[in-house]
């Protein structure tokens, strides 16, 4: 079956511009996660969605970052007024339920964001 897909695969933008990154989770997965992977660093948790519950936004680094998930499926991560330190690979993952915490997460290929 189809895995997690993300678009675009690469995005180059100028400092100060807004960007939108898209994630299509595996069909039927109710949990969706966003992470950021900076060069030489591990994955940094950003935000988590589970069904219709309020998302866990505790990992968002600033109020320039926001995310939404429409219809319990596709998610968009928006970064406003991008800064050079936002340059990273943004990874999306989904899992069956997320409830209980033992779910295996399935990752997309990522979007490489470069802010000039």
């Amino acid at each position, binding site marked *: 079956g189809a895995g*997690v897909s993300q678009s675009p695969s690469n995005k180059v933008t100028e400092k100060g511009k807004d960007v939108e990154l898209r994630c299509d989770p595996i069909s039927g997965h109710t*949990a969706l*996660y966003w*992470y950021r992977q900076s060069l*030489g*660093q*591990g*994955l*940094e*948790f950003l935000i*988590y969605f*589970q069904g219709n519950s309020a998302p*866990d936004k*505790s*990992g968002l680094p600033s109020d320039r970052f926001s995310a939404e998930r429409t219809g319990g499926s596709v998610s968009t991560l928006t970064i406003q007024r991008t800064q050079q330190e936002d340059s990273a690979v943004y*990874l999306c*993952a989904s899992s069956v339920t*997320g409830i*209980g*915490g*033992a779910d*295996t*997460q*399935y*990752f*997309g*290929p*990522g979007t490489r964001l470069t802010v000039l």
Partner: protein
Amino acid sequence: AQSVAQPEDQVNVAEGNPLTVKCTYSVSGNPYLFWYVQYPNRGLQFLLKYITGDNLVKGSYGFEAEFNKSQTSFHLKKPSALVSDSALYFCAVRDRGGGFKTIFGAGTRLFVKA
């Protein structure tokens, strides 16, 4: 607060030799523990996880990991390394009583030489 430490940035091993990639964690409660692998130009793939029960967990591609509660460790092992095992390995932890946030380590790059 949850945290994961992978003390080695890089591990080098000869093909056919056993390999160990180290991971220690800190959570306030009981953990779920995971290992993921990232091959060059590919996304992260799940290897194995510890939920409960037997402390020795077997996963994909011949890998296994042992949960050691007293040492708060979850080291990844394989009896005989392959060149194709060369990749970036991430340990991750989730506090089963603390929500759904998963904390990943910084990663360990494994090089297996022929």
